[in-house]
């Protein structure tokens, strides 16, 4: 009797699962979000996670998902820890995600070799491995709209302009304060190359995770070395501390420039008026005035379906999260168009990313007119190397401080191609690209 019951139960489970798996695949598209709402990096992680989650939730509420298919969203807490991030990935991949957002350069580096094997594209929007912009060697990795190397070249272009020409950098000292990890070390090869090309000296100031809130020694070194400009690649609790310490040694704040990940409101706000003049790159608009963000307020935040406080909607890193989700949603939409299927897979979405193009008109159509620059990804170029602009802290908020700055493609591209080739050569058994390119790309 017991054996019979056991057999019946097994049969029911099998029948049930046979129905359940296709039902899940038909009814929704699974997009997991690797986020960090806890720990020392939560200050940067929370607004991004909120922005990503809220935009996707808004699509579910307003449009019934993407192309009529609901988005199943699941967050996995990584604490910005590479090992935890990789654990999250292993846990989530069984649910057939159509794209993975690692939101950490360290986690991205760990996942790059897995993407082609598991057939899950990785979107590392403006972070991760710069060389992965090469679509021929990294068909499963996408890092639009600009790489860290593009960002660094934009900063140097801006500095050159302020100095009266890039040739005026000769003989000057430029300091680079960075988070000691994959993220902060990523731009150093280009920085060293550009220092040789333009004849400036570089001083490096690494900040370890333990010293993020204890940077007085690094800034004493800055005071001694007297660099003409300081560039920062900071994240989490490192950013507000660095801004405070810079003000403390009277470093001219309008000569202190951060990458786009060092420009959250909570990075400058603790120093308040002392941070006035601090500059960072940015690639998205700031504020809640955009129709799509108003839709988020209406369909998600006001209905209590968000973890975001109302006054935080529209802040810089929140909007960065929104932009990240727009790229994913557009790639899914593309994939649906290319394949004619509604319930697309990771393989389809990879093709969606390779044909991604968001023109100014399309941004407007999405409800984000003038929110970001036109963006195009192709089969060979998974980044686009698009422009960013400089924003400046006015003591209470960010204001736009420059026009769009294009990267120094002539300097970045040769290094990027060499780095991509080197990566592939060093990685034993790296697969040659077999994925066909779609016509649109």
């Amino acid at each position, binding site marked *: 009797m017991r054996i019979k019951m056991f057999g019946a139960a097994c049969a029911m489970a099998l029948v049930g699962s046979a129905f359940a798996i296709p039902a899940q695949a038909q009814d929704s598209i699974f997009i997991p979000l690797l986020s960090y709402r806890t720990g020392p990096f*939560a200050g940067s992680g929370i607004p991004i996670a909120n922005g990503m989650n809220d935009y996707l939730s808004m699509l579910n509420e307003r449009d019934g998902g993407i192309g009529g298919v609901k988005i199943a969203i699941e967050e996995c807490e990584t604490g910005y820890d590479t090992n935890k991030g990789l654990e999250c990935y292993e846990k989530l991949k069984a649910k057939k995600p159509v794209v993975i957002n690692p939101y950490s350069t360290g986690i991205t580096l760990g996942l790059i070799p897995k993407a082609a094997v598991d057939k899950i594209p990785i979107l590392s929007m403006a972070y991760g491995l710069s060389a992965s912009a090469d679509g021929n060697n990294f068909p499963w990795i996408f890092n639009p709209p600009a790489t860290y190397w593009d960002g660094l070249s934009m900063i140097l272009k801006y500095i050159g302009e302020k100095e009266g020409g890039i040739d005026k950098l000769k003989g000057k000292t430029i300091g680079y304060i960075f988070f000691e990890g994959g993220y902060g070390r990523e731009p150093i090869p280009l920085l060293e190359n550009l220092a040789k090309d333009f004849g400036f000296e570089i001083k490096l100031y690494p900040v370890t995770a333990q010293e993020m809130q*204890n940077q007085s020694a690094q800034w004493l070194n800055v005071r001694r070395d007297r660099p003409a400009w300081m560039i920062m690649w900071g994240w989490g609790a490192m950013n507000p*501390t660095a801004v405070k310490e810079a003000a403390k040694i009277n470093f001219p704040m309008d000569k202190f420039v951060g990458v786009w990940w060092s420009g959250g409101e909570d990075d400058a706000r603790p120093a308040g008026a002392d941070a006035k003049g601090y500059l960072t790159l940015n690639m998205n608009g700031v504020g809640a005035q955009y129709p799509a963000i108003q839709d988020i307020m209406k369909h998600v935040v006001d209905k209590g379906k968000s973890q975001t406080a109302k006054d935080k909607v529209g802040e810089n890193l929140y909007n960065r999260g929104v932009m990240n989700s727009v790229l994913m949603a557009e790639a899914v939409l593309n994939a649906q168009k290319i394949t004619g299927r509604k319930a697309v897979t990771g393989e389809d979405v990879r093709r969606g990313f390779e044909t991604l193009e968001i023109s100014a008109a399309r941004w407007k159509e999405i409800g984000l007119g003038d929110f970001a620059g036109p963006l195009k990804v192709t089969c060979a170029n998974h980044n686009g190397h698009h422009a960013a602009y400089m924003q400046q802290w006015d003591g209470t908020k960010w204001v736009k401080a420059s026009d769009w700055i294009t990267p120094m493609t002539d300097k970045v591209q040769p290094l990027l191609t060499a780095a991509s080739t080197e990566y592939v050569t060093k990685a034993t058994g790296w697969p040659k690209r077999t994925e066909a390119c779609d016509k649109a790309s």
Partner: protein
Amino acid sequence: MNILYRVFIDPFMQMGQAPDLLVQTLWEGLVAGVLYALIALGFVLIFKASGVFNFAQGIMVVFAALTLVGLHALLRKWGVSSGMVAAYLALAITIVVMFALAWCIERAILRPLVNQPDIILFMATFGLTYFLVGLGELVFGGEPKSMITEDLGLPRGAIEIKMLGGFVSLQKIDIAAAVIASVMVTSLALFFQKTRIGRALRAVADSHKAALSVGISLEQVWVVVWFAAGIVALTTGIMWGARSSVSFALEIVAFKALPVLVLGGLTSIPGAIVGGLIIGIGEKLGEFYWGPLLGSGIEAWFAYLIALIFLLVRPQGLFGERIIERI
């Protein structure tokens, strides 16, 4: 030869060439050292009274600072118009919260685990850490917050002193931190040396059983000690929060006290104070003068190097007694 010059000669030449920077480095080291001493004191107090290495001391710093800032925001939201009134009300309530926490820890963790091996109590403080992390994030969220420096009446700005051919900049908040931490350390040292409860604490530290036999209440001593450690955590949280921001990253800063404990010992209050100063000043000098030789960023491990070098000379720690045991 060049290396020897850069290690043994050049740093001292730099000190002579820019003495203002040397004074500035010593000042930064002193401020950091006083704050490390304060954190180390939290560990020492608890270890002396209950033999527990309190892994949760770091998160207690975060929890206390978050409670203060969170309550301040709540009181302002509820209509307390004066920022300063709200700040001091929040401070008073936070002190009560830290007392309640000490009482709960005694009831829920220490009392049921009495007479268990030390490692069990140590592991229990891990549990306490994760509980406080979760509770803090649930109640206050994970976003960094600004310390209510001005509302607490703490000074802002800097005093610039022109000296030695340059200038030395003393942040007023750092001066306040050094003064408050020094007063706190002295008061706690006096409290535990001169008062009845202090003597009880020392008796408990020497032998739980002997202390019990003369009528000392272990429970009372534990509550007092954990409360004192909570107040130390609150002070550290305010001071360090004012220097950067109030976030969960402060927990990591608290572990800067570990090399102080290696150096000063887990049971010595003077050890915590002197150890804190040695580590604070030593790591800043190390990072500033010798760091560039090694690509900078050496502060994190240099503190341990200092502690280990001291232990080579004095294996019993700074103020520990040499214990000779028959084997």
